[in-house]
C-alpha cells in the first residue's frame, strides 16, 4: 500500500496531470519519436505537435506563435532573457535593473554579467514584500537596457504591481523616444493563477515553466515580443528561429501546451477553492499556535501561498517532524540550504535571521483537500509544542527592527576541527 502523504509544496513542483497531460505526452516518447526537423511523416507529426502546443500556449498568453521559445527550464529562459538581451545590446547600454527577490536563475546570470562589465542595479522590496514603482523611476537612465522584475516571488507569493512597474518603463521610453529598457518578468509562479496575457501586462519578455502548472519537468519557455533584440545563449542547428538550438523535447512541449491550457480552463474555480483552503489553514494556524508571524503581503498574495515564521524553533527540525507524518512543506532556514545561508528572499523583506530560521512555506495545489488541512491543523500544534519544549529560546515577537549582522554569529565559537 502506498504511504499516505500530504503534499504542500506545489510552488516547488507539481505532479503531471494524468488524464489529459500525461496521456497526450505518452505517444511522443516512443511511437511518435520523430525529429521535427525531418521532412518525412514522423518528423512532420512532431512538427504538428509543436505547433499545437504553441497554439495552446499563445492562446493563453495572447501572443503570436513565433513569439514563444521553448527552453529546457525556467532557469534557462531567465538566463536567455538576461544574457541574451545584454549581449545583443551591449552598445546601447550596460545597466540592468533587477529586484533583490528574483529567482536564482536571474541573480546568478546577473553576477556573471557583472564580471563582464555590466552594471547590475538592485531594486529593493519594501518590508511588506512589494516593489515600489517610484524607486524604479529613480534607477532607470539612458544606459539601462533591461529591467527584470519578478511577477510573484517564489517564497512568499507576494504579487508585484507589475502593470505599474511596466508603466514606469513605458513612460521612460516614450519620453526618451527609445526602445530601451526592455521589461522582463519571471512568471513561473504566477502563470497558474494570474493574468499572463502579454499585452495586458505590457511586458517584452516573460518566463514560464511547465512543471509549476501540472506539466512535465525539463521544459520551460520564454515569451519574446517581436522586435526585441536578443541573442541566443545556446548555438547549434538553428531550431526555434535560431534562438534556442537543440532537438526539441516533443513530449515535454506537448505536455506543456496541454497543461497550460487545462490549468487556465479551471483557473477561476480552482482559485476560489484553493484560496478557501489556504485561508482556513492560515486562520487555523494563527488561532492554534502562539507566536507565529506571516511573511509576505497579507492580501496581495497568490491564493495558494502561506509563508509563516514559527518562533523559537528551527525550520529543518519542524520540516522533518512533519515529513514523518507525511506532510511535505519547505523552509527558508539556513540548515535546509546547501551553503547554510538563510533565505535571501526573507532577508530582503528584512526579517531577522531569528525569524527566518523558523520559516515554513505551505504552497497548496489541486491535490489538496479539506482533510489535508485538518490533518495539518491537528498535528502541527503538537509538533510545535514538542520542539518548543526542547528549545531554550523565548524570542520577543517584535524584534523586527533589529536585523542581525554577521557579527551575531560570533559567540566564542571556535571551529569544530580542533
Amino acid at each position, binding site marked *: 500500500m502506498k504511504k499516505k502523504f500530504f503534499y504542500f509544496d506545489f510552488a516547488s513542483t507539481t505532479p503531471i496531470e494524468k488524464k489529459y497531460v500525461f496521456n497526450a505526452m505518452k505517444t511522443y516518447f516512443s511511437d511518435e519519436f520523430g525529429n521535427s526537423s525531418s521532412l518525412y511523416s514522423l518528423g512532420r507529426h512532431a512538427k504538428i505537435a509543436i505547433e499545437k502546443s504553441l497554439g495552446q500556449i499563445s492562446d493563453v498568453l495572447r501572443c503570436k506563435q513565433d513569439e514563444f521559445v521553448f527552453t529546457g527550464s525556467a532557469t534557462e529562459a531567465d538566463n536567455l532573457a538576461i544574457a541574451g538581451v545584454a549581449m545583443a545590446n551591449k552598445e546601447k547600454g550596460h545597466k540592468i535593473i533587477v529586484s533583490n527577490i528574483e529567482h536564482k536563475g536571474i541573480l546568478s546570470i546577473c553576477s556573471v554579467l557583472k564580471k563582464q562589465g555590466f552594471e547590475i542595479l538592485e531594486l529593493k522590496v519594501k518590508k511588506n514584500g512589494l516593489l515600489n514603482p517610484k524607486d524604479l523611476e529613480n534607477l532607470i537612465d539612458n544606459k539601462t537596457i533591461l529591467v527584470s522584475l519578478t511577477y510573484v516571488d517564489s517564497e512568499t507569493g507576494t504579487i508585484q504591481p507589475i502593470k505599474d512597474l511596466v508603466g514606469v518603463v513605458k513612460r521612460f521610453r516614450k519620453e526618451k523616444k527609445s526602445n530601451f529598457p526592455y521589461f522582463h518578468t519571471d512568471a513561473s509562479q504566477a502563470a497558474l493563477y494570474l493574468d499572463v496575457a502579454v499585452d495586458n501586462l505590457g511586458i517584452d519578455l516573460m518566463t514560464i515553466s511547465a512543471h509549476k502548472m501540472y506539466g512535465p519537468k525539463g521544459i520551460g519557455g520564454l515569451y519574446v515580443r517581436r522586435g526585441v533584440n536578443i541573442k541566443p545563449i545556446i548555438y547549434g542547428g538553428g531550431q526555434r528561429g535560431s534562438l534556442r538550438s537543440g532537438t526539441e523535447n516533443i513530449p515535454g512541449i506537448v505536455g506543456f501546451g496541454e497543461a497550460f491550457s487545462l490549468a487556465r480552463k479551471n483557473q477561476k474555480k480552482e482559485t476560489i477553492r484553493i484560496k478557501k483552503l489556504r485561508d482556513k489553514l492560515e486562520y487555523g494556524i494563527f488561532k492554534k499556535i502562539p507566536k507565529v508571524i506571516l511573511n509576505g503581503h497579507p492580501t496581495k498574495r497568490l491564493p495558494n501561498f502561506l509563508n509563516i515564521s514559527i518562533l523559537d524553533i528551527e525550520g529543518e*527540525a519542524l520540516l522533518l517532524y512533519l515529513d514523518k507524518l507525511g506532510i511535505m512543506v519547505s523552509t527558508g532556514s539556513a*540548515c*535546509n540550504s546547501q*551553503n*547554510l*545561508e538563510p533565505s535571501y528572499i526573507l532577508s530582503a523583506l528584512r526579517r531577522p535571521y531569528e525569524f527566518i530560521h523558523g520559516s515554513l512555506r505551505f504552497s497548496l495545489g489541486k491535490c489538496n483537500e479539506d482533510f489535508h488541512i485538518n490533518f495539518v491543523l491537528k498535528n502541527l500544534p503538537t509538533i510545535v509544542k514538542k520542539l518548543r519544549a526542547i*528549545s531554550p529560546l523565548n524570542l520577543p515577537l517584535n524584534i523586527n527592527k533589529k536585523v542581525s549582522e554577521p557579527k551575531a554569529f*560570533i559567540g*566564542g*565559537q571556535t571551529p569544530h576541527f580542533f
Partner: protein
Amino acid sequence: MSQFLKQHKISIKNPKVVLSGMPKIKIKKTKPDIVNKFTGDKWVYSKIVKSHFFYPKNFLVGDIKKLNFDVEGIIGSPACGDVMRVWLKIDPKTEKIKKFKWRTFGCASAIAATSILSVMVTEKGGMKIDRALKIKPQDIMKRLGGLPDRKIHCSVLGDKALRIAINNWFKKTEQYERIIIEGSRILDPNTKVTEADIEEAVLEGATTLEAVQKRTKVGIGYSKCILEVEELIKFYREKYYGPDKK
C-alpha cells in the same frame, strides 16, 4: 571476488557459472532515496541521528528553578540558527557528571548531537569531568554514525556548551586554575594572536592568509602555526561569505 562483492554491496542470487567464467551477478534493487554517504543509510541522517532527533533523551522538562542543578552552560545565537543550553549536576567527590539536561534550538543534527552527548556523559555512572573536557566534536559524530558535511558545525556546539558549563563549575567551586578560556587560544606565541583575532580579521574582510597577516602579523615569526591559521581562515571565510568556488 567475494570480498569485492561484499565491499560493493552486491548480492549474488543463485550464482551460476556462465561461459565466460564470471558469476552472474544481480545488483540489489534499491528504492531511490537520500543516502547518507557515511553509513549508507537511506535517510539524510543516520539511524542514530534519526532516533535521537525524534526521541530526544535527557532534555530538560519543567521549571529550572525547582530542579537544583549545579551549573549551566549556553552557546550559540538564535541568529546563527543554533542555541544549546545545558545544565549539569556534578558529584564533587568523584567529579563525575551525574546529570546532564539540555535544551536546543536548531536543526535535526543539532538536537540529536546534544541528545547523544547527554547519553555519552551520563552513561556508566557518569563521566569524569577531566574526560568530559576532552570530548571532541569528532567523538560526538562518531557516536551519531556520521553527519552530512555541511551539518558538522551543529555537533560542535554540544561539546562547547559542556565545556562552558564545566568552566562555570570550576568558578563556582573556586578552582580558578582549572578554568580553560575558549576562543582565546593563542595560535602564535610571539604575536599572541588568538582564534578570535582570526575570526575578527576575516569578518572585516581579510579572507586570505596574506591579508590576515597584514592585519595581525600572525605566523610571521612562527611558521608552525601557518597551516592551522590557513584552515581557520578557510573555515571563517566559508562561514561568513559562503562556500569557496571550486
